[in-house]
């Protein structure tokens, strides 16, 4: 493709190789690709499907809860619905979403690499993810699972007469996909950084994916083993979690939460990374306290392994254990707070503009803070005992996981969309969707805090009439939220069709991914970039990054041969 065919691209004085989108257009060239950028898009497609399935289940539930009586679906169907929603959203959307789509696409570009360290393993991860998703979905469609996404024993092993085995096997397989992806990213960051890209020059998005990968590699196997034990128990009647035969059902919860609490940070850390990139770019300020941010990321990753017991305050574990886990859960709020303070300090005095991805990122900071502060309530044993298994819990983890992680995912998608597709979307529509999502989210989930405090239990398909008003508000909010999620699909599709060309760096951002063409060529960079400065070299006074003026590579880039092929 020549420059003439890409309006908006600066005149480089040489012609570019075809973009990764044009390097082979057959279905086979996509399904057998080893290009990290295409694999990121494959994930984006599969994850969107999972998100829609999980979202539909949520919509049916919120409709059921509009009236106090259980009149739309039966109690049993309702159990299967919330399990479908939880299993799909947690295991097949929230956990893989940011690392596998934005991580796959951006991470190699951001460190100046040609690809991830093991490209074929990367493709294999996608197939594993699809295989796991298909297994779990088939279980959920054949007749469903009624255990909830946590598969708690002994209900899941002894009593549930649903497709637990198949669903657990699906999650087990998807776990291998996570491990392979995490391994790939760790080795990539260690071995593929370009010249001059030292550890303390890594973009914070890369740091957050790196820390997430460590959690993926070291926590996921614990989940795998406990799921294998559930399958073994159901298929071969092993009796490990059967109290009548000496089994210990609580043991399942210990191992399960040893994975699943760190899994919360698998969801939120990449989101924090995305938001850092966006906030610093649209306030045109260097990130405040870069080193502190790095240590906060690593601190969250490490402390995340020591707090699983706060999920078990009412499970019958010893009071002493509960006290220790309570203390550790307070400690993990410290690095999270450092990040919020540093974001605020980055914004302070910045030259702030409100692009759509900035709105999503600001929404993230607010919603994450809200979710994090209510997390402190839950770390306090007396309050936790009061609100355990109520809607307070539901609201808390939705603020973190949906308000936080999904906002961050959208922030990142809007931020890197021009890089991914080479085209711009409608900024007006996108801002409207961002605001709508923030409003819809709060209308949906804030009433649930109150409902929970009043004592409405989670996972019930009917409730006393006095809870109806708050439930109606929540369901109404869910409708707004549905609209807010549908809008991006429309304007992103329009952008692909007739969006204006983005150019290399529409946001005037400083990351390496912006130093190549949009969309990037198959090899990412025509000539490998060299890094000679700290990241986030923004200057608010000019409202301009300095990169364009005194970029030492500019000369070099300009005398590249006419046709690199």
């Amino acid at each position: 493709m020549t420059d003439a065919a890409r309006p908006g691209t600066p005149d480089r004085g040489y012609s570019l190789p075809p973009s990764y989108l044009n390097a082979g257009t057959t279905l086979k060239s996509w399904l057998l690709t080893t290009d990290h950028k295409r694999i990121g898009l494959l994930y984006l497609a599969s994850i969107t499907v999972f998100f829609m399935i999980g979202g539909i289940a949520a919509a049916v539930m919120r409709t059921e809860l509009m009236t106090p009586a259980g009149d739309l679906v039966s109690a049993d169907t309702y159990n299967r619905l919330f399990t479908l929603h939880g299993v799909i959203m947690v295991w097949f959307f929230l956990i893989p979403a940011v690392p596998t789509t934005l991580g796959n696409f951006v991470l190699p570009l951001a460190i100046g690499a040609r690809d991830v360290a093991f490209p074929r393993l990367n493709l294999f991860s996608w197939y594993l993810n699809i295989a796991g998703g298909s297994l779990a979905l088939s279980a959920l469609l054949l007749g469903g699972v009624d255990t909830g996404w946590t598969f708690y024993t002994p209900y899941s092993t002894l009593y549930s007469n649903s497709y637990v085995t198949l669903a657990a096997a699906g999650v087990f397989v998807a776990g291998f996909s996570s491990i392979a992806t995490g391994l790939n990213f760790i080795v990539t960051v260690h071995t593929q950084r370009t010249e001059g890209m030292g550890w303390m020059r890594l973009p914070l998005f890369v740091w957050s994916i790196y820390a997430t990968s460590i959690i993926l590699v070291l926590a996921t196997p614990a989940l795998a083993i406990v799921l294998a034990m559930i399958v073994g128990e159901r298929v071969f009647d092993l009796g490990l979690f059967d109290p009548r035969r000496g089994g210990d059902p609580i043991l399942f919860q210990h191992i399960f939460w040893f994975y699943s609490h760190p899994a919360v940070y698998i969801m939120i850390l990449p989101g924090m990374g995305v938001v850092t990139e966006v906030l610093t770019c649209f306030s045109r300020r260097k990130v405040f306290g870069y080193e502190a941010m790095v240590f906060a990321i690593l601190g969250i990753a490490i402390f995340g392994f020591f707090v699983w017991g706060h999920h078990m305050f009412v499970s019958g574990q010893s009071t002493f254990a509960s006290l220790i886990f309570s203390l550790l859960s307070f400690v993990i709020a410290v690095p999270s707070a450092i990040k919020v303070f540093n974001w605020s300090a980055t914004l302070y005095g910045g030259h702030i503009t409100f692009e759509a991805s900035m709105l999503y990122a600001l929404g993230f900071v607010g919603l994450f803070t809200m979710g994090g502060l209510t997390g402190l309530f839950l770390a306090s044993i007396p309050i936790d005992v009061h609100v355990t298994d109520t809607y307070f819990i539901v609201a808390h983890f939705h603020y973190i996981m949906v308000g936080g992680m999904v906002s961050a995912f959208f922030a990142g998608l809007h931020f890197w969309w021009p890089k991914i597709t080479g085209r711009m979307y409608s900024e007006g529509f996108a801002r409207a969707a961002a605001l709508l999502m923030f409003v819809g989210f709060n209308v949906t989930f804030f009433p649930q805090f109150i409902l929970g405090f009043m004592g409405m239990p989670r996972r019930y398909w009917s409730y006393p009439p006095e809870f109806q008003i708050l439930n109606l508000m929540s369901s109404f909010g869910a409708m707004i939220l549905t609209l807010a999620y549908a809008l991006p699909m429309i304007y992103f599709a329009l952008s692909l069709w007739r969006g204006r060309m983005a150019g290399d760096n529409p946001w005037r951002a400083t990351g390496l991914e912006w130093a190549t063409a949009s969309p990037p060529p198959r090899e990412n960079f025509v000539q490998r970039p060299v890094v000679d400065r700290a990241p986030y070299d923004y200057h608010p006074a000019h409202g301009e990054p300095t990169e364009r003026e005194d970029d030492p590579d500019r000369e070099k880039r300009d005398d590249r041969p006419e046709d690199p092929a």
Partner: protein
Amino acid sequence: MSNLHEPFQTLARQRNAAEFGIWIFLASELVFFGGLFTCYSVYRLLYPQGFLAAGAETNLIIGTANTAILLTSSATMAVAVWAGRAGLRRHVLWGLCLTAMLGVGFMVLKAVEYAEDIRKGLVPGAGFAMSERGAEIFFSFYWIMTAIHAVHLTIGVGAVSLAAWRLWRGALDWRGTAFLHVVGLYWHLIDLIWIFLFPLLYLLGRGG
């Protein structure tokens, strides 16, 4: 330089990446088995008598023979890896073939042992032969742990055989790459796990 693959620009860097990758994988595997060992320990503390009685029912002779076989295979694998470093193709081939054969030998013996266990009614479930509380849980772990170990060993035998076949055909990048080292480290993981399984499952309850 046909051994060099995208996205690497030097063979040394590619070798480092492959070795680093397999170490991360091994760390991940240790957490996987660590979960099992933790659960085993918890139940061992809950039911010391049942575990002692059940541990005395495993076949010590086959278990010991298998330990010897697996440790020998570890040595032959090490020979293959070191011969690869020295560039001795024939020795690599022999090392890999012996390793695969010893691995198959282990599994044959294990199958004999499984058949005997089934005959003696040591399978958890309705027809379980022992009455001590906890004995059934011991055998649950026995079956899960040895089965998962056998799965790993099967993958290992497959990988080693495939490597030997491709080396014989001349289609294996073994000079200067980390391939043999990676396969070797995986094989040693299988030994390592067994070294823990052997005392936990076979030696327990036999101290008099």
